[in-house]
């Protein structure tokens, strides 16, 4: 794979390394870019995303904050309002519950409330998701919350390639962009081009083509969906997998086109099923021109209606797994209208 990678001007990097590379590129290019958060300096970040950036850029541009998420987020907003381009790292997305005021009432609304006279070029990064045995207060997936908020853009890259390209797109963006990074993905590897490139905000990606059924999946679920698709191919069920990539603004065109082709839709996401990302995907399709092409109900596989438990078997049981996806798709694909 590494030869292939070199040919394409890329190398294998982990998702965390890809993010770090994007930050470094942006900070080298633009003195307005800086990063702040808890333990992102000498510690290198709870998930080692910032790594040794503090040694490359100094503690004035890689700023360790006190443990104060509301204030920290507000500082980022104030800096963004006055000429800087901050990146704010939440240590875990769960702690963003302390900062919703600044994110939602201030960052998202300031441009609008001030009649277009300001922009808030701010990037926030949210390590999210379960699977680390860290229990209910360190494992949530809250992308649906921010996806509900006009003024924000909300991303969920699923590969190292996209993690780098979408972060660079986010830093270029004049508006506040929220990036949910699944913690389990940080160590996943993939080919990442060198240097600057961007992956557009608002574009889903068809990561596997298929004729029989569409799975729209987000973040880590993209990989589970792809694994399920391989399994299902053995049964002769040809699944198309769409990587959502952006929760807000959602890529209607790509998803609608896929469903119009396959006639069947399953949404797979880790966040709690009720009012999670898949609710919007489903509702968007059900009111679109794709409705008439639907040959079966729209299924959602989302997180269980429970907090994330500590025990590892319970923890697995509350989020969609490959077997569950396979079973659900099999049932839906065979259903006659």
């Amino acid at each position, binding site marked *: 794979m590494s030869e292939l990678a070199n040919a394409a001007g890329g190398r294998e990097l982990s998702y965390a390394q890809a993010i770090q590379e994007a930050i470094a590129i942006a900070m080298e290019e633009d003195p307005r870019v800086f990063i702040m958060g808890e333990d992102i300096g000498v510690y290198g970040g709870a998930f080692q995303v910032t790594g040794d950036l503090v040694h490359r850029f100094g503690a004035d541009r890689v700023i360790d904050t006190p443990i104060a998420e509301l*204030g*920290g987020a507000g500082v980022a907003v104030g800096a963004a309002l006055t000429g800087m381009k901050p990146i704010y790292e939440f240590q875990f997305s769960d702690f963003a519950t302390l900062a919703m*005021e600044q994110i939602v*009432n201030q960052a998202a609304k300031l441009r*609008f*409330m*001030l*009649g277009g006279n300001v922009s808030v070029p701010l990037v926030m990064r949210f390590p999210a998701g379960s699977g680390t045995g860290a229990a209910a207060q360190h494992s949530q997936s809250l992308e649906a919350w921010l996806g509900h908020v006009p003024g924000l853009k909300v991303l969920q890259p699923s590969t190292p390639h996209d993690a780098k390209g979408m972060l660079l797109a986010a830093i270029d963006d004049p508006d506040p962009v929220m990036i949910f990074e699944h913690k389990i993905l940080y160590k996943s590897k993939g080919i990442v081009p060198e240097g600057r490139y961007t992956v557009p905000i608002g574009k889903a990606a068809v990561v596997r083509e298929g004729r029989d059924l569409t799975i729209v999946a987000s973040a880590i679920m993209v990989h589970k969906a792809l694994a399920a698709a391989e399994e299902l191919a053995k049964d002769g069920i040809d699944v198309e997998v769409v990587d959502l990539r952006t929760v807000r603004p959602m890529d209607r065109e790509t998803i609608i086109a896929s469903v119009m082709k396959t006639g069947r839709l399953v949404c797979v996401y880790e966040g709690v099923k009720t009012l999670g990302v898949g609710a919007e995907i489903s509702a968007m399709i059900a009111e679109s021109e794709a409705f008439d092409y639907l040959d079966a109900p729209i299924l959602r596989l989302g997180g269980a209606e429970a907090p994330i438990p500590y025990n590892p078997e319970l923890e697995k049981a509350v989020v969609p797994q490959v077997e569950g996806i396979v079973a659900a798709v099999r049932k839906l694909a065979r259903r006659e209208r």
Partner: protein
Amino acid sequence: MSAIPKAADVAEAAPQASGGREGDNRPFAFRHFEPAVLKDALRQMHLIRRFEEGAEESYMRGLIHGTMHLSIGQEASAVGICLPLTDTDQITSTHRGHGHCIAKGAEVGRMFAEFFGKETGYCRGRGGSMHIADVTKGNLGANGIVGGGLPIAVGAALSMKMQKRPDVVVSFFGDGANNEGAFHEALNMASIWKLPVVFVCENNKYGMSVSTERSTAVKNIADRAVAYSMPGVTVDGNSLSDVSEASVTAIERARRGEGPTLIECKTYRHRGHSKSDRNRYRTKEEIDDWISKDPIGRFEAELIQYGIVTDGEVEGIRADVEREIAEGIEFAKNSPSPDPSDATRFVYTA
């Protein structure tokens, strides 16, 4: 001006700030500022007062919907604090922010237009009273969230420092806001990073209906400065001169890179908290007592006493202000409303 622990720094710094002749016994502002500046301060105080009275009248006439928070009685704090600021210095303001906005150089016509929800308003009619901002003059905006501006001000101050700009940031907030977590987090960060920001608490004794005695575990809000190792001063917020002295001292300190200061201006709002206030928590005596300490009358009397203005000039200022307000209201009335089909504009830049 009563100092509290750590205020020593302020006291030391003060002499540098105070200009004027040796042996000049007049209050600070009269020693420190040119007569023209002082006259303009009086004009601004009248302009704020009449702006808010004009808003009140407009509300009665149905020209304004929604609510409003008037700062009538608090003009010395807004004007006194902003006296040493330049147009590139920044402020964050509050729900009770008309005074700050005018003191930072906004035009009343565009403010009325915002109040009336017009396209010519500072926020194109999208923000209203609680979000008026004139960013061209360094006003980052009123804020509907109590304490919401405090961390934003710290971020702006970090920004000034990172960009090596000479500018400072002033963050206005109320006594009620001082019990919010945002206050604590903001002051702590400003202090550890020695940022050029001045925190100005306008203590009008009540957060809506709850008195500071009932809401706040310290007597003076400035007493909390100790918890952030920054100077804290409590001043008579109805004395333009006392306020300006604290402001000059704190802003010079901030500009020298020595970090933040907490200033508490003790003052009073003559009106209710907002339009829906039935005033069940203050006595008529208390209100009357404070009306007798009105900051505008006091400053006017001092200006006359020290020979800066004549009675006639005062009349002239009032008449000018009157005209400015009338013109502002006319401008606002005659301005176009936003087109409802534009309701979702300005959500995103791109």
